[in-house]
């Protein structure tokens, strides 16, 4: 069974997914960061594939993308690093990235390599649903890769229903009308939106991401969904860290405590 399906079957609440940019802070940190995320008790790992023009990302992730590219990260290098990671990591791992590097690699070759190294799902924010359905879905399915679409507070109910129908794994609820970036608080409008979507009784579980940064915001998000995704705030921890393993442990346990 796909590890994403398995996770959501067993765990219905307070799921924590951690995003980081591959190749940041150092080129070869990728797998040790994954190990530390798992050891600290997070449930899903999202590996960001760096891109030169990340239009949905705020300054923190723009900067980690730049640094990773400067360090020499490419999809080829990433797949090389990921060879054999399944010997040590058993939680679901998702690749998240913009479409162009994937298309240059070749969608079929990309999905095949994902499957070979042990990736469970993909998030490609600028892949339109229509293109996915007509061109790529059969490839995703052939390699047992779950595809997650995003929704935002502006997404219409009809569109959410459509997305729910064509997503597998989980729905990524963008927490507000915003690019990525750590924020301080969750507003009443956001909670109303979380509840509105919850009441739709979608077939997919929902994780809330963008702007989730600490224990209170994680708890609030998790109270209205199946869990949350932390990205920029985690990248900030990595950037400041002098001991990755310890700092990751401390940060994630602080969220889950």
């Amino acid at each position, binding site marked *: 069974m796909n590890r994403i399906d398995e996770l959501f079957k067993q765990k219905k609440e307070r799921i924590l997914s951690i995003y980081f940019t591959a190749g940041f802070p150092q080129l070869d940190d990728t797998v040790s960061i994954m190990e530390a995320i798992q050891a600290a008790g997070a449930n899903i790992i999202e590996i960001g594939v760096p891109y030169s023009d990340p*239009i949905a990302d705020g300054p923190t992730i723009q900067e980690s993308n730049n640094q990773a590219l400067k360090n020499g990260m490419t999809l080829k290098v990433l797949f090389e690093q990921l060879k054999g990671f399944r010997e040590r990591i058993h939680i679901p791992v998702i690749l998240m990235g913009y479409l162009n590097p994937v298309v*240059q690699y070749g969608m079929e070759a990309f999905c095949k390599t994902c499957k070979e190294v042990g990736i469970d799902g993909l998030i490609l924010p*600028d892949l*339109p649903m229509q293109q996915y359905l007509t061109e790529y879905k059969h490839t995703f399915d052939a390699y047992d890769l779950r595809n997650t679409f995003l929704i935002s507070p502006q997404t219409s109910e009809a569109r959410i229903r459509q997305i729910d129908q064509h997503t597998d794994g989980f729905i990524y609820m963008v927490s507000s*009308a915003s*690019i990525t970036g750590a924020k301080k608080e969750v507003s009443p409008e956001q909670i109303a939106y979380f509840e509105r979507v919850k009441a739709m009784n979608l077939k997919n579980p929902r994780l809330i991401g963008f702007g989730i940064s600490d224990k209170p915001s994680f708890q609030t998000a998790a109270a209205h969904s199946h869990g949350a995704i932390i990205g920029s705030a985690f990248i900030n921890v990595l950037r400041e860290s002098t001991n990755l393993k310890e700092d990751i442990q401390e940060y994630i346990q602080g969220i889950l405590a």
Partner: protein
Amino acid sequence: MERAMIKVDENGFYGQFGGAFIPEMLYPNIEELRENYEAIMATPAFRQEFDSLLKDYVGRPTPLFLAQRLSEKYGAKIYLKREDLCHTGAHKINNTVGQIILAKKLNKKRIIAETGAGQHGVATATVCALMGMECTVYMGAVDMERQKPNVERMRILGAKVVPANSGSKTLKDATNEAMRQWINNPVDTHYIIGSVVGPHPYPEMVARFQSVISEEMKWQLQEKEGRENPDLVIACVGGGSNAAGSFYHYYNEPSVRLIAVEAAGMGITSGRSAATTTLGKPGILHGSKTLLMQTDDGQVVEPHSISAGLDYPGIGPVHAHLFDSGRGEFVAVEDEHAMQSGIEVSRLEGIIPAIESAHAFSALNQIHYEPTDVIVINLSGRGDKDLETYIKWGNY
């Protein structure tokens, strides 16, 4: 010869190029535009306001000027389409007038825009002042430096100019920043894209607003030459809006050669170039599939051109299709040659062209044509904004 029909399909594709590759957060914005723009543009109220502003505010129709001395020098009959005489000094305002009326009809309260040379930023700030709308323009920090007068023009007009500090700090990065700010302000804000780039429906919508250029060319040529069609139309391509506008009514007239002129920068093989059709491969940037300068890994390569308006690693999807289908002929002009042509046009015709437009003139040295040919060069803008670059270059 059978030549491809140039037409956009319902999903925004020209052949294999175009589409709307956008994060879901922008889907409602794009959908709102896609569903409404054609209907709004078709209303008499829109047409009337658009036409009257183009006439009385922009100063259209712009003249079609027979450039005698240039014609003598190059041995063909060369006309200049004088977009440099538009209010604010370039063709960019044709599009901003159209989009601001559209934004009002969609009840938007704020306008954002990206700019490279600053011409589109100025044209946007201008129509925002005219309509009393709040305006923020994103501009690469490098471009703010090399197009200082335009930064101050925007500020005088009441716009806020925000530097884009990521990547190459030029047009591509300004566009990224504008898209991010649109994600952050999805409801009350309209994004006025300045060229035939971005997700569907922008490329086609901008081309339609600019198509007034070739619409006028047709009747002006009829008056002057007794025929609507020239033998060649030449235009520079950054994103490609002045080219799309001057080609638009000739796309499906196979006897008209469409010459698109890109910036070769310091030379195509120098690593400091913006010659997208030569150096690019199909890829996805700013919401559309197009030809794109990129690494094997799919990272966008930072372009270079002496002209800020051509300093872009992609081209509009319609131009990628013109290239791919063979309907368009693509030429790349180096910085040095463009500057020489800029001076030449100044001396021969008493017109200092924008450095973008100077690239179009320089193509005359690279293409073949007959002495009997009627050539229209789209003079997309005037050189006032480029004085500092001309002065720095110095060879005049």
